[in-house]
């Protein structure tokens, strides 16, 4: 895992997009505004890392949002936290989102206290469903601090330690831009440093 400082301009740009989108639709999209903003910041920061075009508002966020690198499409999932993530922390994916046509997932964690975005790792969609644990709707999921939440929909969870990880931007870009031998179908071939 590695972290990057989220640029202040990216935060403002994402706030702008979110505000514009909510005005355009005249109702609230799925997820709280805070969750939406977290997701946008994660996506835009990843786009920035790979020097991809800015997201734009086009009846939603479909204009340039999809991250495509070396012919693979990615869904960027960002979770907002007030701490930095650890290896045993989990990433969630709502089962309804599992039908989205992407090749791989990138999981990130945004520390809202420090504005650090940690890129926890990536995994191919095929391997994700091999490795992830599925929890049915209504089950209590306990956090490490003892608190819990009840799942509102079927949920998949995967630990950070099961993701392909990189220790810095250069390594991360090398992995995604084609250095990785994908004959492993996205299996972890990098050790955690």
């Amino acid at each position, binding site marked *: 895992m590695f972290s990057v400082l989220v640029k202040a301009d990216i935060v403002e740009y994402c*706030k702008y997009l979110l505000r*514009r989108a909510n*005005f355009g639709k005249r109702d*609230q999209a799925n997820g709280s505004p805070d969750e939406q903003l977290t997701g946008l910041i994660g996506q835009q920061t990843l786009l*920035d890392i790979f020097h991809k075009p800015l997201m*734009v508002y086009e009846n939603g966020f479909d*204009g*340039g949002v999809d991250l495509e690198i070396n012919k693979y499409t990615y869904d960027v999932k960002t979770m907002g936290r007030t701490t930095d993530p650890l290896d045993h922390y989990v990433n969630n994916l709502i089962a309804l989102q599992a039908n989205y046509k992407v090749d791989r997932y990138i999981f990130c964690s945004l520390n809202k206290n420090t504005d650090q975005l940690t890129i926890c790792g990536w995994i191919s969609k095929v391997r994700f469903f091999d490795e992830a644990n599925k929890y049915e709707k209504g089950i209590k999921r306990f956090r490490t601090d003892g608190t819990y939440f009840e799942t509102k929909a079927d949920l998949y969870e995967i630990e950070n330690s099961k993701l392909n990880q990189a220790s810095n931007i250069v390594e991360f870009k090398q992995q995604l831009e084609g250095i990785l031998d994908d004959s492993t179908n996205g299996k972890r071939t990098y050790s955690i440093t």
Partner: protein
Amino acid sequence: MIQLTENERTQLRRAASGLTGTEFARLPYTSQQLHLDDINEVIDNLFKTHPEAFITRAVNQWKEKQRNREAYSRPQGEHHGE
């Protein structure tokens, strides 16, 4: 991410704050349009000054919007259909 000028940064901050979605929804239609025009100006300026930062499709749509705006704009005080 593009390098914003201080002026662009100020404009972006202003457009990113202010009315909430609920407050906006309560405004009369004409006020909503004025408000949208106001915050759209930010993105219009970014398209003008940093077109390379956006996907081609988005730039083309923006250009078409500008052309339509010019084609269908009416001089102040001109009335039709009355």
